[in-house]
């Protein structure tokens, strides 16, 4: 049979962002493939070297569209470490609420979106619609739906609006009730099961070889490897939660784990609302003077958090001036999105390519930066 070159993306419903995989297919088997990023390259790392420490706030959330808040968090954490700033207690808890809400939003998009590559479009609408309810909360807290620019160096940008806790709790109850419906719709669907069970395997060696993190890693190496557990930031050491892990990672497990993680996120938010100080400062100044002249002491530091797709980190270098000297972004899905596509997408069928991208958690903007 003749080998045909096929482009998946950049414009394709099964593609996450403007990103493309070139596949050489024979029949419906992929023989060879490589990733073609760059369509989303916006030069963020370079731009950040030319903006004030505070001005970068407008850029960083845009690195990952689906889950922008980890970007803000790692950026803030890095500056706080460099400048030696204590973040106010209440701000830590607010940050946790925000980060977990963001994880919920991202996972809602994922458990809904997974319907697309298997042909279950209803779940896509559901996922987007329910994610919108989380965005409503974000809008009330931060003033924006997607790019919040809320977690800032030193704390959070504004205190929580009055009465938002009840609204969050109400939303959590709603999502909790919705999860079984999603599960019924997607996970119990025979089509979905056929397509995902024992398909798109991620063996432990591959995890270590590529550097895959997050759910992919936990489902393969049978350990609770989560940054929130291994090196807790904010106040994750003061809430109780446990994450799913297992020794066998197929597409189904990886989606299945998302449901468990969402339940954990819901639980973390509930605990945070209960445990957080009800008042107090939420932001510490990172330097004297106006934001145009904030300086961060010289140094290099790497900070990371657990995003919905795994370890998300920034390497921040300061030379003591009012702009960063260098910022390098470790997007969670960089390893699987590039090397993974090249080495492990071949051997699958064309119709599984989108499913592969989806369950491996490939997010194009964080690869491109």
């Amino acid at each position, binding site marked *: 049979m003749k080998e045909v070159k096929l482009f998946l993306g950049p414009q394709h419903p099964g593609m996450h962002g403007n990103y493309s995989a070139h596949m050489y297919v024979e029949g419906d088997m992929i023989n060879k493939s490589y990733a073609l990023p760059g369509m989303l390259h916006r030069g963020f790392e370079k731009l950040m070297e030319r*903006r*004030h420490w*505070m*001005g*970068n*706030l*407008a*850029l960083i959330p*845009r690195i990952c569209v689906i889950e922008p808040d980890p970007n803000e968090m790692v950026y803030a954490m890095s500056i706080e470490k460099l400048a030696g700033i204590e973040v106010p207690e209440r701000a830590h808890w607010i940050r946790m609420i925000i980060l977990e809400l963001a994880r919920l939003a991202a996972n809602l998009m994922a458990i809904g979106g997974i319907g697309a590559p298997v042909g279950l479009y209803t779940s896509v*609408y*559901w996922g987007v*619609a*329910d994610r919108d309810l989380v965005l*409503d909360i974000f*809008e*009330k*807290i*931060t*003033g*924006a739906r997607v*790019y919040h*620019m809320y977690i800032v160096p030193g*704390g*959070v*940008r*504004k*205190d929580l*609006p009055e009465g938002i806790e009840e609204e969050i709790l109400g939303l959590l109850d709603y999502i909790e009730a919705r999860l079984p419906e999603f599960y*019924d719709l997607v996970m*119990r669907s*025979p089509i979905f*099961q056929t397509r995902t069970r024992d398909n798109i395997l991620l063996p432990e060696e591959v995890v270590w070889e590529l550097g895959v993190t997050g759910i992919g890693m936990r489902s393969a190496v049978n350990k609770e490897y989560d940054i929130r557990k291994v090196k807790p930031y904010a106040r994750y050491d003061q809430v109780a939660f446990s994450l799913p892990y297992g020794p066998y990672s197929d597409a189904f497990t990886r989606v299945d784990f998302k449901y468990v993680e969402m339940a954990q996120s819901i639980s973390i938010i509930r605990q945070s609302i209960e445990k957080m100080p009800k008042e107090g*400062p*939420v*932001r510490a*100044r990172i*330097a*004297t*003077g*106006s*934001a*145009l*002249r*904030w*300086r961060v002491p010289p140094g290099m530091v790497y900070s990371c958090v657990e995003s919905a797709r795994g370890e998300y980190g920034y390497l921040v270098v300061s030379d003591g001036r009012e702009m960063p000297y260098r910022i390098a972004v470790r997007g969670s899905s960089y390893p699987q999105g590039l090397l993974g596509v090249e080495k492990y997408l071949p051997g699958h069928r064309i119709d599984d390519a989108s499913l592969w991208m989806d369950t491996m958690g490939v997010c194009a903007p964080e690869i491109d930066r």
Partner: protein
Amino acid sequence: MKNKSMFSPLKAWKYLVKEPVTIPKKMVFDEPREASDNYRGFHVNDWDKCVGCGTCGEICPTNAITMLPIEGLVESDGHKPERPAIDYGRCSFCALCVDICTSDSLAMSKEYIHISKDADTFYFLPDSKGIHQVEFDIAYNRDEVSELLDLNRYEIEEIPHEGRNQSFMELIKGYSKEMALAEASRCVECGVCTFTCPAHMNIPEYIRSVWQGDLKEGADWLYETNPLSNVCGRICTHKCETACVLGQRGEPVAIRWLKRYIVDNTPEGDFVEAATAKVSRQINGRVGIIGSGPAGLSCGYYLRTMGYEVDIYEEKELPGGVIRYGAPEYRLPEASVKADIDNIEKSGVKFITGTKVGRDISLEAMKNKYDAVFSASGYWIPKVLKIDNKDHPGIRFSPHFLAEARDFTRGMGPMPQFHEDVIVIGGGDVSFDVARTLNRFQRMKNGRANVRFIARKPEEHLAASREEVVEAKEEGVVYHLDRSPTAVLLDEKGTIYGVEVALCETVMDESGRAKTVCSEEKEIIYGTEVYMAVGNDPDFVYFPEAMLSRLKIDRNKIAVNQQGQVEGFPWLFAGGDIVRGPDIISAVADGHKAAVGIDEYLMSLK
């Protein structure tokens, strides 16, 4: 698949009666959803509050904000005639502009829909209405948490309050390096101060130098427009600080103290170099200057930088005028004055002291000797209040007394004579200089003081700067405010025993102007010596009669053109008090302007 019962498809039936999760497209436009109370929608800008400082454009990470000059707005103190225009093709709606807005004018509204095929419509000049001139509620606004300015000043070190009234030690010690950097980091570099500063000093630039730790560069900036930075760093009237945009919501940047930080901390060699580097060796012509006060010094220095030979004539023993014989030591130490004047001397200016124009050399002679003459003879004849017994020989006046005090503190004269119970009449800065100096002398000599201070106005309307009023009170000067002197009281032997005052009241009239009305009710304030410090007049005796009649003099001020040239006498320039009334920084500006004017005039003759 075993976990699915055969009835499970029935579950789907319940969704028939559920609301759909999607929204009809029609609704999006016909009934747009209201944004949250905190929403970062389109910008609104209150033009009445906006001062056009452009800080929003500085912080903008996407370069979306351009400051547009607006026809009809006029530049004034603390206001630029510009307003921010925002390119919504670039704006990322981060609201940093709102968080840093100095004047509290920018905010964001709940409006968020704008659709157009014309890209130009996305370039938008916000006012209090939105992009479509429809009013929406204000949504996102700055609060104290999201604040991006540093509104409070960093403390400057002062000598302890205890005992400061017993010596002439300088009150302000100055900023430490750390504090200076912190204070300098508050500046937003908008530059509205430059417009207001009479000398148009490069204030944002030298504050930036402090912030970057490059004091030599700072000193260079200072000498660009002001050769008396040591003096101005201490006793300038700092109009710039009144204009500073940080004063809109907080405390203005301590511009004067930062200038002082530069002069106090620049290594001497660098400082001298900053002063002399610009001086040109080439001789273009000769200029004579009458009076070595701030205007004369400034004019002489800038003429030297243009290559002129300069002689400054000074009646007194030392050059400096009011800075040498006026301001007291505790505000302006001799060493600071000397540093500035020495640098000017190093630039090649020649001082001819002890020589009074009109007495030792005539103006005619100067006209013949020099290509041009700059007169800055100042105000040295004290005004006398028109009250009973105003000509009594026991009444003393500020110029003479302060000069004596200065001579004493620099070790060039004895302590002036004074009584134990004294009365000072005034209200301006100079009268406080007199009162505080007397207070110190009395305590140094007698261990106690009795200085009574009389002024017509209440504390908040006094012409003197706020800190003078507060500090003099702390030091023990007794105030008798809202009192207008009517007579100096003499006993039968003809010696003074007090001042009779009428009780007054200052009220605001309809136009908001303060008006003082005095009643018939009188009261006596006791004291055996009276010091009058109610302003000075110029001494124009050196002008020949024929010339004086042709000069246009209005309320003691000589009329000159933009460059200080005296009307009808192209060779004669004037500046300082005799043109503008007393203010050191204005005098410096006059001197600089006149130097430029003289240069242009002399070049035009060639």
